[in-house]
């Protein structure tokens, strides 16, 4: 017997065993193919809490020669209590050989103590070829649960229920591709019903999964909040020559700004997908609508030493005042600080006047000044709302997506209507936080608060966790 509960997912080839495993293990690397024999070896999927295994799922190859195996076992039948021994004898005789490799591979974990999850496709008719498989599984003597996984239309579920009910104590309908998180947790809890000693670890496991799910949502909310915060404070700067017309550079800068926005959004998408363990997701999403250049160019900054003109004037004033102060000192204060005042004023004025002239002047090969064109932060008040709407849709789809689901994630704009309206209070909270982020003050605190707010919004959107 294994120390922790283990469940071997077995069945006919191409009936969705790997899909079940992919969804329950949140693993999109599981190969799901339409050719029989895609899985040729057992592959364990341990569920671990801080390294401690609470249970394991084992993906197995499908039955390939069940009739022959069943006949072999029938030929050695003694009494009902000896049937598991017959199965073991089968493994002893054929394990490692090439006569029944698939059956040996799939029966080995079962005879090591794994519970049986027998998977059938409820969209196709029951057939006599399944009898042998179910008989073999019954002979193992292990706890058994049957899953009807309708790969297409669920037209034959009732027939399957009738057939499976004769061999399995629990029969469940579970669509691996459409099952949401709550259904997955419910199924895992059902595994715990198969054997008393499995109840506690499965309960701990499902509770951990529920808690973890909430944390993943929180992580996703933080990724989106960070993205929004960075977008609202985003600046793109270009150094331009003294004779360059800033108007000519603006389109290039707008493009660079928008590319940066797109990059930030892409990173947030990846972070959200990673939070939910979707690492191979292909995404189809229309780009952000183009921004108006006037939204971006809130500042066309002239800079020398990285200072604005006023900062520069201040520097000139200090320098002038220092020189004037020296004269005041030299005359022993008899000038009543006139030198300091006049020097400061002259310094400021001359620096302001000469600001442009400093551009590109170099002393000792160190650039003394530069002229910069700065795009952003954006003044488009709608931008964060647009970005948030897109992020909510993406999050809801990713959070609800089963890992067995293959194909691209299509973020159809029309589907956005499916999301619930954000309440008035939350909307005000969002606007207030966007304002703070736009101002560039208390960004870290505001980002944290925005993440908390988004977490609540995401929970309402349907990406939330089930209750333990």
């Amino acid at each position: 017997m294994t120390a922790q509960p283990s469940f071997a997912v077995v069945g006919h080839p191409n009936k969705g065993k790997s899909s079940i495993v992919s969804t329950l293990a949140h693993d999109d690397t599981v190969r799901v193919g339409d050719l029989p024999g895609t899985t040729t070896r057992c592959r364990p999927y341990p569920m671990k809490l801080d390294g401690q295994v609470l249970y394991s799922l084992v993906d197995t190859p499908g039955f390939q020669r069940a009739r022959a195996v069943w006949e072999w076992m029938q030929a050695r039948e003694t009494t009902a209590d000896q049937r598991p021994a017959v199965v073991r004898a089968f493994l002893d005789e054929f394990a490692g050989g090439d006569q029944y490799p698939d059956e040996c591979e799939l029966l080995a974990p079962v005879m090591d103590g794994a519970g049986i999850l027998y998977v059938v496709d409820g969209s196709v008719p029951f057939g006599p070829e399944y009898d042998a498989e179910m008989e073999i599984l019954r002979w193992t003597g292990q706890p058994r649960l049957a899953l009807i996984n309708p790969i297409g239309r669920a037209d034959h579920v009732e027939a399957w229920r009738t057939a499976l009910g004769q061999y399995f104590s629990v029969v469940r309908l579970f669509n691996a591709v459409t099952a949401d998180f709550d259904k997955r947790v419910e199924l895992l809890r059902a595994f715990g019903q198969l054997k008393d000693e499995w109840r506690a670890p499965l309960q701990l496991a499902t509770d951990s999964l529920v808690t973890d799910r909430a944390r993943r949502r929180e992580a996703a909310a933080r990724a989106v909040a960070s993205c929004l915060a960075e977008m609202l404070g985003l600046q793109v700067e270009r150094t331009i020559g003294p004779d360059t017309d800033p108007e000519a550079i603006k389109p290039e800068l707008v493009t660079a700004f928008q590319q940066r926005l797109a990059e930030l959004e892409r990173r947030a998408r990846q972070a959200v997908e990673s939070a939910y363990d979707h690492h191979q997701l292909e995404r189809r999403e229309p780009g952000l609508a183009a921004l108006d250049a006037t939204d971006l160019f809130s500042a066309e900054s002239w800079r020398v030493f990285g200072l604005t003109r006023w900062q520069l004037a201040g520097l000139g004033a200090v320098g002038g005042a220092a020189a004037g102060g020296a004269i005041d000192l030299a005359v022993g204060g008899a000038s009543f600080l006139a030198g300091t005042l006049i020097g400061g004023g002259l310094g400021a004025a001359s620096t302001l006047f000469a600001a442009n002239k400093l551009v590109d002047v170099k002393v000792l090969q160190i650039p003394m000044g530069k002229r910069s064109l700065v795009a952003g932060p954006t003044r488009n008040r709608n931008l964060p709302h647009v970005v948030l709407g897109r992020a909510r849709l993406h999050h809801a789809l990713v959070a609800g997506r089963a890992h067995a689901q293959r194909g691209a994630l299509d973020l159809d704009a029309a589907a956005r209507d499916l999301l619930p309206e954000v309440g008035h209070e939350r909307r005000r909270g969002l606007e207030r936080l966007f304002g703070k982020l736009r101002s560039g003050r208390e960004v870290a605190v505001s980002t944290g608060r925005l993440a908390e707010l988004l977490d609540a919004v995401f929970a309402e959107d349907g990406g939330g966790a089930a209750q333990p």
Partner: protein
Amino acid sequence: MNDTPRTPSLGDVLDLARQLAHDEDTSGPSLRHRDREVGRDLAHLEDQPLRQALGWLQRVRTPEDEQRVGRVNALHRLGLTTLTAAGLAAGWGGANVVFFYDGTHPVNIIHVLAVFALAPLVLLLGFGVGLLPARIVRRVPGLGAVQDGLSLLSPGRVQHLLARRLPQSFRDTLAGWLGRGQAHQRLFGRVDRWLMTHSSQVFALSFHVGALAAAVYLVVFSDLAFAWSTTLQQTPADLLRWTDTLSAPWAWAWSDARPSAALIEHTRYFRLGDGSFPDAPSPVGLGGWWPFLVMSMAVYGILPRLLTLLLARWRLHTALRHAMLHLPGLDEVRMRLNWALVETQAEEPDDDGSLEPGEPTPTVGATSGGVEAVALVWAGAVTGREAGAERLRTTLGATVSSWHEAGGASTTTDDAAVLTALADAPGVILVLVKAWEPPMAELHDFLRDLRASAGQGRSVHVLPLGPDGADAEARHVDTWRRALTTLGDPWLRVIDPESEAP
């Protein structure tokens, strides 16, 4: 762990920024795994975010990172050492100039006070302006510019020169972060501001320490004559009021360091009249100013700068802690450190070899008629033989001479008997299968055995059928074509009624 530092260094902050930037390109699962492992070690620091972050950084950084951090901190220390040395030298030199005495003209204590007591107090005003918070600076036009201008004159800017010697990865990280928007600029701007302020206070304090040391040295090892002289209309009584005010902080403890009226009266000096001291009682009395001057330099030069240095040091550490805790990305790290790691994925990669066969098995289309065939129904693919025969006649133009059953509910012994019957019957062998069920190994075995018994060249056509004898879905036919390829039987065909007859 008790070796976790409590205060971040400049190198730590820059290294954290570098590490966070690096992590942005690392996969989520590996980050969760790495950080949770560290987090379990640092569980006792969960309520101390800063120490936990520092502990985490220590554990994830490589020896190369460690070296880079060491280099940053060394550069910072080099800057401070340079400023300390420069300050001491400047102070020593300045004091030698101000206290210069060659026996011709005495040292003017007005001059000494102006340079080492009054000027520092005025410069403190500049320091105060530099400390004004942004919300006040924003409301006073031009004040920000003055603040920036003062910072440009700060000796602390030597740290900027040294910053050019930072490791390339840190400079890249810093440039990248500063280019990411206002939040990052503010975060590092605050550190930069207090870094410069702290450095400038180190210089200033060193300057005054150097000056005081030089003054004491000159007093001890040379014979200085002090006097006071000013063009302004100042009487000894006026000066006494000034000196009483200035010496108030220490007069209660050291009365000799408070100039007496007699000393002031006797040490007045006039440049004209051969520079004589008309009221001087003796040359010895001319040195009586030194306790007052030393205390003035200590209290009005060193003490304020010591306080401003401590303030700047505290604010620098606060800024470093603030930057460390508020760097975007650190909260995510703390989540990973403190949240239990739940893993559900396979530990080993899926290394099953590719099962995709090469070229699919060729298909044959419906024939125009006149084909003699023998039919094998595999696993109950056809329930009614008459309907099945009609179906084969109309869709394939095949006339079935005999029907056989195998697979499904049949035993393997039955299958073996069927093999013999099929081999003996004339015509094409039609194998009718359930299209929705995959071609399994036992059918492969059967088809191999059939080839062996029927002989080379005998046509075997596999017809996948839908439920109740309906046409199979194209995807199912395709699956059958690809799966049967593995048999490598050149006389085996999958029948696709949709395709043209050959």
